[in-house]
């Protein structure tokens, strides 16, 4: 009997405490409804629309819309552009992160701000700057046309604009992690006789591989999906300088909605795959962080 009494009161205190530490049921329900409603309205419905519109006339129409030379050319161009710009930005990101996190120097935070700069530039302006440099009326326009080199309205311009737009992605993911990991492990490797390359490949890279992959993934999603910057430099030549997002726009403006949404659905699938991979990598990253923290704790004790 006394035991029962005890548990009764303690249970009561516990529920009372929990009630005071959260909102009243009415407020909870309202917040849940608002929050979930907002997500469904602004994220769920647009995403569902892409696929229902693409399949509006059935699978055959969907597949035949994709089985088209212009669509193939757009897919090929998008893959080519990503295949050039993503590795370049990956290498740059690692180099920049190494420089920023392994050394102390004046002007470091200024350098980080400069690397982040493309994030705060409108995509349209990112394209415009290359038209001003390499377009016919640009700084190098005459020299380029005299030497018969085409950059604007051709693949090199699209690659340049894409590199600009995706510039910060890899460095952004690496810098916080490498800052947190510090320099002790690399210093130990160097003192034990490793050279710079060995230190990077055997010590640093294993520590940052998940964050690196994560950055590359985000960089790739943006590279394949970029619209504004690429639209300014591409010239919209069907079958030649149209990436997948640009091809989507042209089809849509021609009222060819099924085909437009069919190409769009491929890009939406890419986004979904990116998010799934991102969730997996975030989990791996958390593990890596925890492991690192544990190894530090072990070393200290």
């Amino acid at each position, binding site marked *: 009997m006394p035991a029962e009494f005890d548990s009764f009161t303690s249970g009561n205190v516990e529920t009372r405490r929990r009630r005071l530490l959260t909102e009243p049921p009415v407020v909870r329900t309202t917040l849940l409804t608002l929050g979930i409603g907002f997500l469904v309205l602004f*994220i769920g419905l647009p995403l569902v629309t892409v696929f229902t519109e693409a399949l509006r006339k059935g699978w055959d129409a969907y597949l035949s819309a994709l089985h088209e030379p212009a669509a193939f050319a757009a897919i090929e161009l998008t893959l080519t552009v990503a295949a050039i710009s993503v590795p370049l930005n990956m290498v740059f990101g690692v180099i920049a992160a190494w420089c920023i996190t392994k050394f102390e120097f004046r002007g470091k935070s200024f350098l980080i701000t400069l690397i982040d700069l493309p994030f705060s530039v409108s995509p349209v302006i990112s394209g415009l700057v290359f038209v*001003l440099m390499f377009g016919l009326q640009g700084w190098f326009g005459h020299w380029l046309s005299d030497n018969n080199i085409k950059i604007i309205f051709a693949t090199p311009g699209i690659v340049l604009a894409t590199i600009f737009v995706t510039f910060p992605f890899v460095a952004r993911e690496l810098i916080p992690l490498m800052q947190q990991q510090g320099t002790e492990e690399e210093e130990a490797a160097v003192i034990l006789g490793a050279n710079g390359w060995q230190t990077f490949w055997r010590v640093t890279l294993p520590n940052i591989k998940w964050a690196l992959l994560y950055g590359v993934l985000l960089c790739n999603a943006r590279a394949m999906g970029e619209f504004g910057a690429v639209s300014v430099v591409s010239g919209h030549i069907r079958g030649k300088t149209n990436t997948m997002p640009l091809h*989507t726009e042209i089809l849509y403006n021609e009222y060819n909605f099924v085909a437009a949404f069919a190409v769009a659905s491929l890009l939406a699938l890419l986004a979904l795959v990116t998010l799934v991979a991102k969730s997996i990598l975030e989990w791996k990253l958390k593990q890596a962080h925890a492991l690192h923290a544990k190894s530090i704790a072990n070393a200290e004790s």
Partner: protein
Amino acid sequence: MTFSLFKSNPGSRRSVIPGFGITLGLTITWLSLIVLIPLAGLFLKSATLSFDQIVAILTSPRTLSALRVSFGISLGAAAINAVFGVIVAWILVRYDFPFKRVADAFVDIPFALPTAVAGIALTSLYAPNGWIGSLLEPLGIKVAFTPLGILVALVFIGLPFVVRTVQPVIEDMDKELEEAATALGATRRQIIWRVILPVIFPSIATGFALAFARAVGEYGSVIFIAGNLPLVSEIAPLLIVIRLNEFAYAQATTIAAAMLVISFVLLFIINLLQRWSARYAR
């Protein structure tokens, strides 16, 4: 110039790790080639115009209207995102509901989904014959092809920013603080206003500024749904593209330079805000 600016800290112990010179050199070279020189070219180009010409371009009714539409509607969209972003962050951290992890992952959709795809999807949703548009039509509300459509697109684009800046702060927030306040007799409402909001406010401000900065420059998702009527629903990035297609390079460049200057001021404010929220987070 670069070497006096980025010099290894005098007085600090020289690092044994190799590669400072070469990595810094490569970083600055690549950064200059891809980002700094092209951006400088833009400012150089607009500097070839006289002051009067620049003023004339920037104060023409069409430019003014485009800037007003871009900045005004972005402000509205960022405000909506600030309110709903906090609610979404709160329910994701503190409440349980079905498919919570899926919802959490889907918050990033606007980051991952190409803007053109978002643009055509939102347009067909809010067009008069679309799922939402047909519901709003009888009420006399037109979204697609009006400034309201721009607002919808910019809310979509800015959605993750506030959620992702506020969410980690709520996660890190010490529940003991709330417990202590409860023990001292505070009501839940007092705790929300006096304990929780002051802690998360800097992160709300940061997310708001990030969403605003992103919305101002946004192009792909807006042009499909906006209707693009000059003086009414024409955004500044679109006006740049239009001027460029007319080969009016000076005009395009001047509007772009003006937008860049405003964005850089914003970036500076965001940096200050982030430093502020970092101080509060400790």
